[in-house]
C-alpha cells in the first residue's frame, strides 16, 4: 500500500478511541517534532515571511511588501525557466513511465533471467542523479563525444548536442528516461498482484492480447500508474544536479537548461537575494501542489480502485 492510498483512506476513516499513550508518544516523536519545527514546516512558514523582504544575509531584512511576488510576473528569465521545466517534466515523465511499463510487462510472469534483467535495468536509476553521470553526459553528448563517434560509424554527422540550445534540454530528458528502472520495479510488483485467473478466463474467451492489456492490465494497474505519475512528476520538478553540471552552473546555452531549481539557486546562493529566492520557493510549492491536485482530481476519471 502506498503513501497515496494512505492519504486517501485517512480522509474517510475514523479512529476508535482507545487508551491513549500521549506521554510515551511525545517522547518517541520528540526528534520528529523538532525536525518539523526547525527543518521542515518551520522554514516553509519562515520563507513566506521572507518573501516580503529584501535580504542578503548581511544587512537585516527590509520589508518591501509584494515586490518579490510581483517580480515573479514580470521576470522574463523566470518565465523561460518555467517553460524549460514544464517541457522537461511533461515530456520526460510520460516517456519514462511508458518505458517502465513496457519493460515491466516484458519481464512479467516467470521470464527466465528475470532477476538479472531487473538489476540491469534498475542500476541506472541509482546512478542517474550522481554528479559522475552528469559529467559523463557532458562528454558523450559533446561535439567530439562518444555519441557522435558512434553516429559517424553509420555515416551520420552529429553536432554538439549540449552546446546547441535546441537540443541541450533533450539530452537531460534522455537522462531522465534512462532512469526508468525505479518505476519499473514498482510496476513489476503491481503486475504480480493481478490474479492470473483474469487472464486465464480471458484466454478461454479468446480475448486478444491488446484487449487483455486494455481491459485487464490497465484498469487493475491504474492505481500504481497514478502513484508513479504523482511521484515522478514531483521528482522531475526537483531536478537540479544534471542541469547544473552539464551547463557549468549557468543554465546555458542561452538559458536552455535553466531549470526552476537552478534559477532559484542562482538567485539565492549566487546573488544572495534571499527575499526573491523565498518568493520563488513558495511559487514552486504552489506549482507542484497544483500539479498534484490536478493529478488527484483527474484520477477519478481513470484510476480504478478494486477495494
Amino acid at each position, binding site marked *: 500500500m502506498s503513501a497515496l492510498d494512505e*492519504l486517501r483512506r485517512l480522509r474517510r476513516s475514523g479512529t476508535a478511541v482507545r487508551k491513549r499513550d500521549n506521554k510515551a508518544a511525545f517522547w*518517541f516523536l520528540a526528534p520528529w517534532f523538532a525536525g518539523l519545527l526547525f527543518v521542515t514546516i518551520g522554514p516553509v512558514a519562515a520563507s513566506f515571511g521572507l518573501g516580503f523582504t529584501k535580504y542578503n544575509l548581511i544587512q537585516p531584512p527590509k520589508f518591501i511588501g509584494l515586490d518579490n511576488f510581483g517580480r515573479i510576473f514580470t521576470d522574463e528569465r523566470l518565465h523561460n525557466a518555467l517553460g524549460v521545466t514544464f517541457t522537461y517534466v511533461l515530456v520526460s515523465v510520460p516517456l519514462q513511465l511508458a518505458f517502465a511499463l513496457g519493460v515491466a510487462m516484458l519481464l512479467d510472469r516467470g521470464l527466465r533471467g528475470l532477476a538479472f534483467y531487473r538489476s540491469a535495468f534498475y542500476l541506472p536509476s541509482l546512478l542517474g542523479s550522481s554528479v559522475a553521470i552528469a559529467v559523463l553526459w557532458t*562528454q558523450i553528448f559533446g561535439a567530439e563525444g562518444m555519441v557522435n563517434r558512434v553516429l559517424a560509424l553509420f555515416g551520420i554527422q552529429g553536432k554538439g548536442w549540449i552546446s546547441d540550445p535546441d537540443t541541450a534540454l533533450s539530452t537531460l530528458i534522455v537522462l531522465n528516461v534512462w532512469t526508468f528502472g525505479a518505476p519499473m520495479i514498482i510496476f513489476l510488483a503491481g503486475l504480480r498482484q493481478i490474479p492470473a485467473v483474469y487472464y486465464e478466463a480471458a484466454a478461454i474467451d479468446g480475448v486478444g492480447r491488446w484487449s487483455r492489456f486494455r481491459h485487464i492490465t490497465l484498469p487493475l494497474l491504474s492505481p500504481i500508474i497514478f502513484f508513479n505519475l504523482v511521484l515522478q512528476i514531483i521528482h522531475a520538478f526537483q531536478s537540479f544536479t544534471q542541469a547544473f553540471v552539464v551547463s557549468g552552473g549557468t543554465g546555458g546555452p542561452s538559458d536552455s537548461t535553466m531549470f526552476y531549481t537552478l534559477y532559484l539557486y542562482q538567485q539565492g546562493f549566487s546573488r544572495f537575494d534571499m527575499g526573491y529566492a523565498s518568493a520563488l520557493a513558495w511559487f514552486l510549492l504552489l506549482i507542484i501542489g497544483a500539479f498534484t491536485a490536478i493529478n488527484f482530481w483527474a484520477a477519478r476519471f481513470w484510476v480504478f480502485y478494486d477495494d
Partner: protein
Amino acid sequence: MTTDVLRRLSAPAKHAGLILLGFVMLYPVLWMVVSSLRPDDEIFRSPGLVLDTLRTENYSQGWDALSSPFGHYLINSTIVVLGCIIGNLVSCSMAAYAFARLEFTGKRWWFGIMLGTIMLPIHVIIVPQYILFSQLDWVNTFLPLIVPKILATDAFFIFLMVQFIRGLPRELDEAARIDGCGHPRIFLRIVLPLMKPALATTTIFTFIWTWNDFFSQLIYLTDPEMYTVPVALRSFVDSTVSTSWGSLFAMNVVSLVPIFLAFLFGQRYLVRGIATTGGK
C-alpha cells in the same frame, strides 16, 4: 496450439530485445570505465570497448588533481553518510513506532502532516534553513547535512517503517506488556529486532541518496577542505574540463564504486523497499 508455437518463437526474440536494450543502457557506463584506462586522445577517438593500451596513470593523476588527495573527499562523504544513516535509523524508527503502535491525541493529523512532508521539496525549505544554519555558524561543517536526519525529516523512511511495524503481530507487544514492559522496552527489545529488514532498506537508501546528493552539499560546503565527493567532482570539472578527461573519468569511476557495491549487496532490500512502499 498456434499460440504455443508463437510463444516458443517469441521467447528468444524477447530475450534478444531485452539484452539489446540493457546493453544500450549500460553502454555509456561501461565505456566510461574502459575510457578511464585510456590516454586522453584515445577517449575522443574511440567509441568502442576494446582497450589498446592500458593506462592506469589516469587514476594516480586524478587522485592528486585537486587541492587534497581524492581520498580526503571520500572520507568526508563517508562521515556525512554514516551520520545520516545513524540519524535516520534512530529517529525514524522511534517516530514509526509511535505512529504504528501508540494512540495519541491528534494522531491522524500528525500522520497526515508526516505523509505530506514526504512530498515537500528541499528547494522550498532551503533558503530559511540556510539562514538558520548560517546563523548557528554551521556552514562549512557537516551538521546541516546530518542534523536534519537526526530530526527524522526523511519522512519516507518513517512511512516505510510504519508499514513494516503494522505487519508485525501485536500479540508479542501485548504479551510483553502483561509482563510489565513499558513502551521503551517493547520498542527496543521486541519491535526493533524484528524490524531488521526495514532498517536494512533504510540504511541502503540513505547511503545511496546521501552519497549522490549534490544540492545541499553544494550549498553548505564551500571550503575545499570540507568538500564531499560530488562537490569535489564538480570543482574538478571546472578546473580541468579541457585538459584531462581521463583522470576525470577515473575519479568518476571511483565515486561510483560505493554505489555499485551497495547495489550489488543490497539489491534484495532495494527492490523490496521500492516494492513495499510503492506497490499495493
